[in-house]
């Protein structure tokens, strides 16, 4: 039996691409999804398929569902944006945009794929350490915390057929964090007990584990992969 299809959203980014590589190595056929057409180059390099889609739109979700086939083994809801500002300065448009993309789009795709999951499939939501609260990220922390609750409910409704879990990283070395002022980044890394920024490989390895049969008894959970940041001062 083949490994089935693994769908990764936000796959044009550094983290999504690496997550895809890990799932391909585990024997899954990849379907890489992104709003950014660059996802087609990532897929070509991997020899896999890509869909360019806006998951906040019904036709974008439909395009992914159509391409997904009838044997979806893994869905990784990785697509996300940030629109940081203190709450007092945050526009309602920026709050709504982050919720729509990070949370509601993931809800739409996850639910639309329900008839397509194979027995034993795994949904993995990319949450964040910031789901516990983070200065300047009222929108982002809401979106990433929302994914946790959504996944907990699905884990119970879809058990034992489909498992649903979340990964909550802290800072990960991607173009998003590389764009931050170095002194700001250094200050944030200093608060991580592990003493370094997380790597895409750190996260990809955890996603591959949660997708694997070794994690078949894990559902409805959040795994904090944040170098200890969630418990540090």
């Amino acid at each position, binding site marked *: 039996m083949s490994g089935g299809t693994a769908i990764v959203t936000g796959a044009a980014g550094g983290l999504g691409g690496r997550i895809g590589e890990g799932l391909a190595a585990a024997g899954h056929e990849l379907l890489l999804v992104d709003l950014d057409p660059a996802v087609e180059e990532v897929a070509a390099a991997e020899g896999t398929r890509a869909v360019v889609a806006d998951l906040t739109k019904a036709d974008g979700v439909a395009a992914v569902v159509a391409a997904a086939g009838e044997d979806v083994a893994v869905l990784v809801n990785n697509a996300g944006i940030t629109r940081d500002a203190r709450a007092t300065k945050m526009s309602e448009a920026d709050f709504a945009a982050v919720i729509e993309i990070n949370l509601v789009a993931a809800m739409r795709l996850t639910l639309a794929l329900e008839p397509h999951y194979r027995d034993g499939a795994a949904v993995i939501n990319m949450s964040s350490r910031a*789901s516990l609260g983070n*200065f300047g990220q009222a929108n982002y922390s809401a979106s990433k915390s929302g994914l946790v*609750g959504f996944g*907990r409910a699905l884990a119970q409704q879809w058990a034992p057929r489909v498992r649903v879990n979340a990964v909550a990283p802290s800072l990960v070395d991607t173009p998003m964090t590389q764009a931050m002022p170095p002194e700001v980044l250094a200050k944030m890394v200093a608060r991580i007990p592990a003493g370094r920024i997380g790597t895409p490989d750190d996260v990809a390895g955890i996603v591959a584990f949660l997708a694997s049969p070794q994690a078949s008894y894990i559902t409805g959970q959040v795994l904090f992969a944040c170098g200890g940041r969630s418990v540090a001062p």
Partner: protein
Amino acid sequence: MSVLSGAVSEEQGKVEPFVLRPAAVGDDIDAVAPLLTAAFAEVRAALEAGRPVAVVVDARDLLGQRSPLDAGVATALLGMVRTFGIEGAKPGWRVNVIAGGEGDDDAVEATIATLPASPLTGQLLQVGGANLGKVVP
């Protein structure tokens, strides 16, 4: 405590807690972002006006025991409140989530009544027994 807070709120209407009770969205996915965005704007406005805020959710939604979309809303509000708590340290905002289950309405109301005199902020206040022995959301 409730008598005291009642007296305070009558004399100084400003400290009357703002209580946000999100409507159930059920399976209406289009309602999720507008509801959360409105919650953000309303909670912020109340905090900037100096009022303590209670966001009341169902403990069962925090654990995902009912509608997946309502679970998403409840936990999203918790994440938002925690961030408001962090950002509000200097201005002295007091904003919390209160979670009760079935039959806990009186306990929720009693907890809300303590807020005007309470220093708590950024907390998840779980009343009743629905969450005992369960994971902390």
